[in-house]
């Protein structure tokens, strides 16, 4: 696969490490009343869709950026790539 890095252009997926669902950015608040349940759902439950999937890739053999890649899990087509840091900031983290 080829990931079109927002800063560096197309790079081979072999340079990247995969983590999983981009919701892992949304780490719950530990002080929340329902924190036990929220952390359980955060860490363990997945939508695991067939189709578009936002997911985290780390450019370990590159610029060390974490990326949020929107990819189709059936065709493997990549629809969008963003810097995870910006996604995280935009989501209010």
């Amino acid at each position, binding site marked *: *696969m080829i990931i079109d890095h927002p800063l560096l252009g197309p790079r081979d*997926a*072999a340079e990247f490490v*995969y*983590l*999983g*669902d981009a919701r892992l950015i949304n780490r719950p608040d530990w002080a929340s009343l329902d924190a*036990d*349940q929220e952390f*359980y*759902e955060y*860490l*363990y*439950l*997945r*939508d*695991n*869709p*067939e189709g578009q*999937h936002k*997911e985290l890739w780390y450019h370990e053999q590159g610029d060390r950026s974490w990326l949020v890649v929107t*990819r189709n*899990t*059936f*065709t*493997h087509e990549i629809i969008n790539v963003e810097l995870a840091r910006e996604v995280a900031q935009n989501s209010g983290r």
Partner: protein
Amino acid sequence: MMKYSVWNILKQGLRGNRDWPLMWREPAPQEQYDVIIIGAGHGMAAAYYLAKVYGVKKVAVLEKGWLGSGNTGRNTTIIRSNYLLPGNEPFYEFSMKLWEGLEKDFNYNSMVSQRGILNLFHSDPQRDAFARRGNSMLLAGADAVLLDEKLIQKMCPFLDYDNARFPVKGALWQPRGGTVRHDAVVWGYARGADQLGVDIIQNCEVTGFDIQEGICRGVETTRGPIKAKKVGVSVAGSSSKVMAQAGMRLPVESHVLQAFVTEGLKPCLPGVITFGAGHFYVSQSDKGGLVFGGDLDGYNSYAQRGNLPTVEDVCEGGMAIMPMIGKARLLRMWGGLMDMSMDGSPIIDKTHISGLYFNGGWCYGGFKATPASGYCMAHLLAKDEPHPTATAFRFDRFQKGLMIDEKGVGAQPNLH
């Protein structure tokens, strides 16, 4: 029904093989069943045991494609019970025992071939971990032998002992491990279940559940609605998709695992060999092909096909440990959908919806579990409680902190 035997082969052969009967019926779905099982892999085994052991007669198995089109027909055919943890080992040993009696049980030769499985290790810490595992196996009534380098050299003279980057220090050997002809398992169970009256319905995809007031009363399918008192789901890589129709999110990701086979070669491998310092395992089929595999491609996928880096990685592992296979040609590569769970272990459990049962999260270890998985699923469906060897495979173990994490890599499915 015709019993299969050498006499029948001779008889039919002399008649020009013109009178072989259908191996199973092709019934239309009835309106209502006692139990519907979705998915004809583990599900077929479940239906077989449900009918045979638990006496439930009105059973249907729904398969969205052709029989064996799922993971039962696309794996590397290995059976073993070399697990470490108490939640796992007795279950897989139960499965192994069922394999050993399977052919007589359903009068079909699925070529259970117990030529042993060798797990090579390359360092002292690996040896210690394998020793712990081997002792677990023995305590659970399975078989295990710790081999030193000399014994391995005798058994496998073709491994790289002189020039290896990670020298072989020893191996954990399970003599009863081996391979089974995977397609024949599907066919054998199907024939067996069919003879017990189970309706096998191919090309019948489930499109929804009939759930009212928290009770599941049947399914919607591409061949119309079918009612049932109980519905069991065992659809491997499609688990999340199917259970989403019941409104459930699972602790599961679907990943692609590639497998490979070479051209036919004269016998050159004794059994199954796994390489502990790279991602590679291999056996040789009765037809002569080297059947091998390695790691997941590593990203969520429903594509049933993989990419080149994994192919290279697996072949590198192969060449590193057995450099004699350099001129064996890779003939076919294929990909299966793995329902990778969050701790690498399966789930066989009721759901919060009454009448809806789930069996999945088999990761890439589902094939070897087929008989026990089917048996335990049948037990659960029939008795509404887990089979004694499958009590740990519950949904709530993640909430309770009772994960069964053999590899110790945590909640990251692509690492299991």
